[in-house]
């Protein structure tokens, strides 16, 4: 099989307001393709490319167009603008769920989807294929002589007692701009009383707010930050960056599920299903997990004994998308974070 993979590079294809703003678009053409899969994804091309190539190894007659956009852009494209895609892959579980709930996705059933664990699929429309935990990233240098926090209580104590170390050196998502940050924050608020306490403490320490995890991790590594809370980083980056350490809290760890849905504009559910099946079977291809840094959903893996809590797919995720609820939450968060 010959590959005609070429990058269009970072191109802003958006031309007007309301139109879809793509961060990147890449086409993987094959000769004599029977079908073309148009994928809209929040994952970077570099991250996802190994999966796409492996997919084409298996299905040599399918070309792929891989477009990258933010989760908000993705949502808007599919929900409001009726953009035509065969598959939408996003880390924003809540938005994916809303797409399915509000009738913008199609159902798909196969042996592979039937084998997914119950928590990894919803309504035969939302399919999870990775499980990525939100972790605490700390700077080894900054923590010299300090105990590593193991839970949120411990973290709050640490931040309170060592303001000189952490002042201006605490990082977290800006939940107003980061959909993922908002998801983690709202899940935290559901799961623990200490979330607001922690937010207060971080606000007092003049926490730095980020839109994305990449910069946050780099800043920790460079020592600008001593600690970054609720970071979802690629395993590759986390593992390969020197001077940082990753901590999973032992009270609970929110686990984000990266999901795929078939938009109602898909040309062929069967063809889209090929990719769903491929993604559902990722756990059988450990080399791809290694290359992409995406930990696959493992049906056999039992996390019930651990602190890991996969965020539950379903209408519960709609609650924090409610405009009033979001307003209320953001107001509280801002008032906690931005203290005079």
């Amino acid at each position, binding site marked *: 099989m010959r590959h005609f993979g070429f990058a269009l590079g970072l191109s802003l294809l958006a031309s007007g307001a309301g139109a879809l703003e793509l961060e990147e678009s890449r086409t993987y053409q094959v000769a004599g393709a029977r079908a073309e899969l148009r994928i809209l994804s929040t994952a970077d091309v570099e991250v996802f490319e190994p999966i796409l190539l492996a997919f084409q190894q298996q299905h040599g007659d399918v070309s792929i167009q891989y477009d990258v956009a933010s989760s908000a852009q993705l949502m808007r494209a599919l929900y409001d603008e009726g953009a035509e895609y065969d598959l939408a892959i996003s880390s924003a579980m809540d938005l994916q769920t809303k797409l*399915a*709930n*509000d*009738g913008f996705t199609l159902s798909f059933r196969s042996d592979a989807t039937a084998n997914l664990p119950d928590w990894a699929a*919803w*309504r035969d429309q939302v399919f999870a294929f990775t499980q990525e935990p939100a972790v605490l990233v700390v700077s080894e240098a900054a923590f010299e002589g300090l105990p590593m926090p193991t839970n949120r209580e411990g973290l709050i104590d640490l931040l309170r007692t060592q303001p000189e170390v952490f002042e201006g050196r605490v990082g977290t998502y800006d939940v107003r701009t980061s959909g993922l940050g908002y998801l983690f924050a709202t899940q935290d608020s*559901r799961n623990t009383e200490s979330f607001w306490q922690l937010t207060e403490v971080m606000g007092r320490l003049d926490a730095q707010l980020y839109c994305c995890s990449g910069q946050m991790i780099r800043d920790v590594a460079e020592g600008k930050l001593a600690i970054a809370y609720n970071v979802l980083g690629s395993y590759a980056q986390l593992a390969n960056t020197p001077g940082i350490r990753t901590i999973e809290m032992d009270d609970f760890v929110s686990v984000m599920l990266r999901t795929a849905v078939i938009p109602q504009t898909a040309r062929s559910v069967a063809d889209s299903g090929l990719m769903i099946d491929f993604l559902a079977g990722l756990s059988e291809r450990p080399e791809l997990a290694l290359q992409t840094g995406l930990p696959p959903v493992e049906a056999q893996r039992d996390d019930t004994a651990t602190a890991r809590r996969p965020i*539950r797919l*379903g*209408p*519960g995720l*709609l*609650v924090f998308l*409610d*405009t*009033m*609820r979001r307003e*209320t939450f953001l107001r509280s968060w801002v008032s906690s974070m931005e203290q005079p």
Partner: protein
Amino acid sequence: MKLRNPTGSIRRRLVAQLALIAALLSVAFFFTVRVVAEQAATDTQDNILAASATSIADAVYSESGVVRLELPYSAISMLSTISEDRVFYRVLVDGQTVTGYDDLPLPVARQPGRAVFETYPYRGDDLRSVLVSRALSVGNQARQVEVIVGQTRLGLAAISSKITATAVAIGVVFFIVATALSFLAAQNAMQPLDRLAASVARRGPNDLRPVTAATPAELVPLVGGLNSFMARLRSALTRSEDLIAEAAHRVRTPLATVRTQAEVIHRQMERPQNKKALREMIRAVDESSRSAGQLLDHAMVTFRSDQLETEDINAADLLRDVVDRLGPTAELKDISVHLTLPSGRCVVRGDMILLQNAVRNVLDNAIKYSPADTDIVVQLTNDGACRMAFMDQGRGFGEADLASLTQRFSRGANVDDVVGSGLGLTIADDVARAHGGALEITSNTEGAGACVTLVLPLA
């Protein structure tokens, strides 16, 4: 004998009716279960919807004159506990949508303080929704809060189809079991009838005793009818037997009188012409009585051949008996009857009366057609079949008419001077055939005379 056109079967009708009842009960059961279960499922969903809507309504509050709502997580997530159904909600204050899906339809008839349930299509699926309202006081002003929560019914449909499948399975199993039981019940109910039929069928053709076997009340009229029919039949048979006996008596007694008187007169007569005439008369009497006797015998043989009353018969005993019986008759002509028997037993299965009749007719014939002072050899042999040969030294049958000899009323061409009706060999032939045997007629192999052989299969 079988009835050609039985009009249905009681057993089948009973089974069919019971099965039909079982089927109706199954269907009724199925619908009952379905209706009840679906109602229960709908009620369950309604209750959850109402609880969800109420908890949302309760979460609406006013803060410094502004209506606020912190959508309770549990209000929505509780709806996903049973199924993966889609959920929609809409919150209105004084008719103005404050959050949620503002295209979610409002019920036409709204009653404050009462939950209104509705089902309608929405975004491609059937939606079950509830509207709950409550009053909210905002700065001394009463405002109407309305909450609509809707949920698709796929889970309900799944539950319903599961219940339906279960109900169908139970209905089918019930039907099968009930049908099998009804079959057994019918079998059981029919048993006395079968027993009765078997007990009647087991009877011999001449057994006309009343049926006395225990019978259930329902069969008493039938058995009563059967018994009275058999009583009538018995009396009719007895009557006709008596009639025949009476007729024979009536005919034969005067014949006997005539014959005896003729004998007496014959003795006393002198003139040869008169004597000859009288002798002719006596012979005519003999002929008519013998004909009558053989006709009756033949009728009886024909009747009995349909329903043989078989038993094991020792052929040697049978022959000895008949030879004894006809001894005096043979003696009158100085004919010696020699009976030769094999060393082993020779047993046939047959009707005693018929076989006696056949053997007697053959031997009687032989005596009749043999000249005085001759021998008749009766020989029993066993060569895989039982062969009873009667060899005389009479004039034989001639060549041409061996085959026609057993035809009714056919007599040998050369026996006009001997009294006989010609039925003797016919009777013997009929009996042999009725027993799966044959009557063989040949000219005697040793010298003059005929050889008649009655061949019967061994028992």
